[in-house]
């Protein structure tokens, strides 16, 4: 659950990283899943940690692929995973249209089924399952950083 604003601070030294570049095609999610599976195995992710990393990548990358390039065409998305003693960090970087998910409002999860709007649910779930989310627009690129605290014990 994100309960406070994320302040810009130097990234802690991460002991392990993995990165991948994917194209803006939803079939690429499969390759991304394999990367998370491998990374999670190497770093002994707990079920809850691995679930949160799968979820944040699937939801956010699906949004980027679906909405970042209204004119279509071939584009790439850079994804970096890093793990340290205290947290797991996920970075998604693309040159699509500006979109700040941190400021995106929460969907109605209380209304009757018939009245619920479609959309926004994925971002809501990511905000609830990750501990931090930070967005920056730099050089006409979207840079999204999400963190999940390591579960101790």
């Amino acid at each position, binding site marked *: 659950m994100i309960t406070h604003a994320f302040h810009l601070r130097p990234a802690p030294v991460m002991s392990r990283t993995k990165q991948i570049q994917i194209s803006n095609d*939803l079939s690429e*999610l*499969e390759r991304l*899943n394999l990367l998370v599976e491998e990374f999670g195995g190497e770093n002994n992710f707990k*079920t*809850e940690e691995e*679930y949160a990393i*799968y*979820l944040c990548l*699937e*939801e956010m990358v*699906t949004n980027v692929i679906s909405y970042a390039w209204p004119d279509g065409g071939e584009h790439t998305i850079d994804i970096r995973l890093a793990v340290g003693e205290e947290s797991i960090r996920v970075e998604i970087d693309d040159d699509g249209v500006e979109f700040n998910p941190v400021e995106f409002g929460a969907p109605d*999860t*209380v209304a*009757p*089924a*018939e009245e*619920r709007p*479609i959309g926004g*649910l*994925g971002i*809501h*779930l990511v905000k*609830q*399952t990750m501990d931090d989310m930070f967005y920056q627009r730099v050089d006409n690129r979207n840079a999204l950083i999400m963190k999940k605290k390591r579960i101790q014990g």
Partner: protein
Amino acid sequence: MELSVENLDSGYRCVALSGRLDLKGTQEVDAQFTEETGAKKESVLVDLSNVTYIASIGIRMFLSNIKQLRAANAKMVILKPQKMVEEVLKLAGVDAIIPIEHDQAAAVEVLKGGNAG
């Protein structure tokens, strides 16, 4: 993603899903799931004990089918979700619309009791 249907002694049907309800898994099973739940317009149990993951696309599949069922005054109960799947269903507020039970007999009682909704 796999789907199987069992006819229970109580007269209700239990639709069991198995696999990951991510984008790919949901697309694989969506049409068949709708055929076996929403389109039948009968109260139904949905066994999630073998579903290891659900993302927003999978949740939307449940919401669109419960809408069809409620319009026909029928119910759905989710049975035995794994811990993280249940947590995500609750974060999405699904449990307010589709009751979650961990015991089949209790789930059947929910289907039997009262009016839908």
